[in-house]
């Protein structure tokens, strides 16, 4: 129920921003009579109509969705916090990707996640992250000739 409300609000805000941005395009009718904003304008209108349909659906299902969902939601915060943490860690991995280089950043990223989700298995976690990171670096850059950042390592 809450997800439906958020989806509706997101659709309305997105449609408003998209239509506003579309109206900022200059009217260019050089090679076709429609210009670059005609098709996006139709999409924006389509999104507004979709928002209305979402609102109707949300109102219809409001009665059937009971209080059970509200109760269930209270114990979920811990799981979502872990997903948010993993997402932020992935963002940091990508931010360090060029600076540290593929092999170092990947081994740190893998080791930290495995250490959290596979506690106590230090040897297999350490070996897997090191062997994968440096092994895949050599395979991709030397054998498959895929360009990956070397970063701090003089590879």
């Amino acid at each position: 129920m809450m997800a439906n409300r958020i989806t509706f609000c997101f659709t309305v805000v997105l449609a408003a921003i998209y239509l506003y941005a579309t109206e900022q395009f200059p009217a260019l009718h050089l090679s076709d009579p429609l210009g670059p904003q005609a098709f996006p304008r139709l999409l924006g209108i389509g999104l507004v109509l979709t928002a209305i349909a979402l609102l109707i659906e949300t109102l219809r299902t409001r009665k059937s969705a009971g209080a059970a969902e509200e109760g269930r939601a209270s114990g979920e915060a811990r799981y979502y916090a872990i997903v948010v943490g993993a997402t932020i860690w992935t963002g940091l991995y990508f931010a360090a990707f060029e600076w540290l280089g593929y092999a170092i950043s990947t081994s740190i990223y893998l080791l930290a996640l495995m250490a959290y989700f596979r506690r106590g298995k230090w040897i297999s976690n350490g070996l897997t992250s090191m062997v994968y990171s440096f092994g895949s670096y050599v395979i991709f850059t030397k054998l498959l000739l895929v360009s990956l950042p070397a970063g701090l390592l003089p590879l």
Partner: protein
Amino acid sequence: METLNHILNGFTVALQPINLWYTLVGCFLGTVVGVLPGIGPAAGIALLVPITYGMPPASALIMLAGIYYGAKYGGSTTSILIRTPGETSSVMTCIDGYAMALKGRAGAALAVSAIGSFIAGTIGVLGLTLFAVPLAEMAIEFGPAEYFTLMLFAMTAVASLTGKSLPKGLLSMFLGLMLATVGIDLQSAYPRYTMGVLEFQEGLSFVVVAVGLFAVAEVLQGLEMLVRGTAPEVIRISGRLWLTREEWRRSIGPIWRGGIIGFVIGVLPGAGGTIASILSYTTEKGLSKHPEQFGEGAIEGVAGPEAANNSDTAGALVPLLTLGLPGGAVTAVLLGAFILYGIQPGPQLFKEHPDVVWGLIDSMYVGNIMLLILNLPLIGLFVRLLYIPRAMLYPLIVAISAIGIYSVNGSVVDLYLLLFFGIAGYLCNKADIPITPLVLGLVLGDLLEQSFRQSLTLSDGSLSIFVSSRITMTLVTLTVISFFWPLISSRIKALRGLRAAESGD
């Protein structure tokens, strides 16, 4: 006669040692992708596209298609052994396949799914061989208005048939189409929605979006399941990896019927392998003299759906190759790959690149034989993949995705986009918003807009061009029907329920 020559030439392409190797690699990777959680065929294909840039297009497409149909074979293994479909279309196999495994007949369940997949896969490729050329010849007359209405029909069908809610399917479709408008407009050269970011000028890469939505989102979902402690237990393979005479007798009919159902459903946009396998399961249950055995380990409940979800892949390639029209997520990613290699699928494909298209189709006959071998004597090898700890597997999938995405342009911006779309996919999953219409909208968006603008240029801005011919009128009618289909089908179900209640009284 000319077509027969092309088919035979296709075999000379498919049987070249290098292409046999790529078929084997594709089938092997497909089976791995099907077995492993967290990475499906759409993400698997999208990830491999950058690595195939230097390859001849025929070899690259043969390998990518191998992943597509190979994943269907692998998907059944997890359904049978851990009651989790490795690939969404194997969902029906969970019911009776898992029940058979619990009764010590896992070997027979795996054997019937491999044999059924082989027979039905070959039926599907045969159908593709027979129907592709006539359809392509019919489509050669299509103008921009016909193409616009055809794409509109495909997208509406996908939006209304995937997921649980029509408005959410439409939202997903519009999001995909809106993402397709990012970048320099082809006709006016005006940069749209680029927000000053240089990397956005060429538009968003479908590879980044597809891997983010399918692989990274699945990893986030998997990590959540991991901390919830809902990871399934693997059942050991028991019993001989073959069928008894009685099991074979009970399976052959469902395999043939499933093969035909799967091919027909595969051709239709939006329906896909999941609907094909559900339809096959209900058909077999309806035809069975012992419907009460379904759900308790009936071999027909494995043979039919597995056959259907395999021949569906060949069916789905019919509109992709002949009309340039993908009907689902994987074919949308394949279309993106074709375009990246400079080949536009559609009616001209069979005239301009007969070696590529027939090489690809004929490689599927060979690929199905390879998959039968991979999935019977070597099944034990793939089952070992199920024992890889998921806490190890999920971070590795992100690292593999990072290599694939970074290698496209050598840009960290693509990695940030990958994470952004991963989060978006995870949230869509939570909100029950289907992903397939979004990917379809992104891949078809440019073509849809161009055909829309070309049509209106031809008609001096009159919308009547979209109902000016029999083809466009038929397609507009089909679009309207598919749009209202969820409403129509729920009314039909309600009426049936009412009648059943009345007859019960």
